[in-house]
């Protein structure tokens, strides 16, 4: 074998596999090439001799402190936030409900009169929405109860980890926004206002750090309790349950004529 070029020796040092065995055999027998390879190795050894000063453990924090004032706020475009993964879950759930309601509305034709069909479709849609919002509220209720019962560790001054509650709050937040907007569109002010208050609690938790001081945790809980949000959620939930499953059909309000008849019957009975 001819003497290898310097490039080949550098590639050999770098661990290049091409022609490695041949070159290896040549180096065994050629002192000149071994000396050349040693010179190349000396270059890399000399490079390793260059010290790199340690910038310090908190270097990352210093870099952040230096650049953060220069970072502009990123405002996601409407479609980006719409297609964000968490939102997609809520949008998907909502879309499923809407499609189900639409299909049910199309295929369920109880009567020939278009007016009646329209009323039934509306009822079905409302019912599905009521079930979906009910489900959201019951999840929210669980969340609020957990938050209310969770507390700082007995050790004073230790941070409280609320990461689990935070993830749940973030998930609920997306659904909540959708249902609040729907309630507003439907003109259901009580529902919209309760969902609005619920949203503030959820935001409060979602925007907190994963670990909070006991004092901060207590203030979140106090804000939640002072608004009576858990009670309001339960009231709305009960209202929705009543709408979804009327326990006993309420007697229709009597007309004036019926009342007169009733009165007459009663008087007649007394007479008898």
């Amino acid at each position, binding site marked *: 074998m001819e003497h290898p070029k*310097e490039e080949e020796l550098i590639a050999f040092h770098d661990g290049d596999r091409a022609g490695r065995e041949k070159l290896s055999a040549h180096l065994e027998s050629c002192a000149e090439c071994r000396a050349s390879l040693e010179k190349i190795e000396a270059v890399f050894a*000399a*490079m390793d*001799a260059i010290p*790199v000063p340690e910038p310090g453990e908190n270097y*990352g924090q210093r*870099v952040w402190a230096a*650049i953060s004032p220069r*970072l502009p706020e*990123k405002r996601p475009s409407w479609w980006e936030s719409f297609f964000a993964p968490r939102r997609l879950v809520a949008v998907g759930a909502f879309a499923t409900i809407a499609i189900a309601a639409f299909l049910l509305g199309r295929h369920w034709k109880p009567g020939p009169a278009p007016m009646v069909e329209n009323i039934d479709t509306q009822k079905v849609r409302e019912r599905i929405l009521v079930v979906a919002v009910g489900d959201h509220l019951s999840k929210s209720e669980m969340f609020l109860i957990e938050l209310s019962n969770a507390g700082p560790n007995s050790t004073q001054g230790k941070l409280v980890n609320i990461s689990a509650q935070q993830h749940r709050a973030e998930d609920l937040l997306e659904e909540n926004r959708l249902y609040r907007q729907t309630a507003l569109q439907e003109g259901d002010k009580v529902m919209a206002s309760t969902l609005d208050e619920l949203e503030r609690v959820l935001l409060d938790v979602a925007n907190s750090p994963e670990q909070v001081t006991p004092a901060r945790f207590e203030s979140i809980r106090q804000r939640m309790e002072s608004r009576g949000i858990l009670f309001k959620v339960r009231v709305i939930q009960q209202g929705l349950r009543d709408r979804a499953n009327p326990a006993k059909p309420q007697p229709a309000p009597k007309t004036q004529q019926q009342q007169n008849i009733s009165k007459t019957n009663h008087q007649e009975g007394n007479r008898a």
Partner: protein
Amino acid sequence: MNQMTSSVETGLVPDAVAVERTLAGDRDAYRILVERHSQNIYRLAYRMAGNSHDAEEIVQEAFLRGYQKLKQFAGQANFGTWVYRIAANYAIDRIRQRKVEDSRRELPNRESEEGQEIDPLAQIKDSTPSPERLAGSNQLALRMQQALQQLTPAERTAIVMRHWDGCGIEEIATVLKSSTTAAKNTVFRAVQKLRVALEPFAEGRQAVRAMGTE
């Protein structure tokens, strides 16, 4: 987000999630990425620039550019590799700029790794060092540092990426915006130049070794 939670979050949140959160408008999520990758980028920047001042500037600029271009990242690679590439690119520009600035000065001053100004006249003396002066590893490091400064920005980038960070030729070619063959040749050229620059030193060491054995 406060400073108290920084280490907790930095340790827990994966890069991809931090990128997603940043893109969704949570600027503080970018802090996680900055804190996690700063040290690594600093090492690259220092080896490329040869001094702390320029290295710190390269690190900051790399993260600023990373933030501005984050949409382009879109999970195409590991965030660390991506921002490393940005830093290497910026370092090339910075070194070129520094060379122009230095050439405009009558007596260019450069910082040594200890932050002390190096007298340009001393550098001339350094080019013909006696074996005794170069015997220690500090001198070797200084000599090597100077030899690296003599490389072109592309050569310096190629050798730093190849040797210290174990980057593949394709990765180097991406940063240099060249073909893989050209990138490979750039690495070879860099090693050749360094070998030639260290030749007097190697001879000096041999002489010292010979003196010691005699």
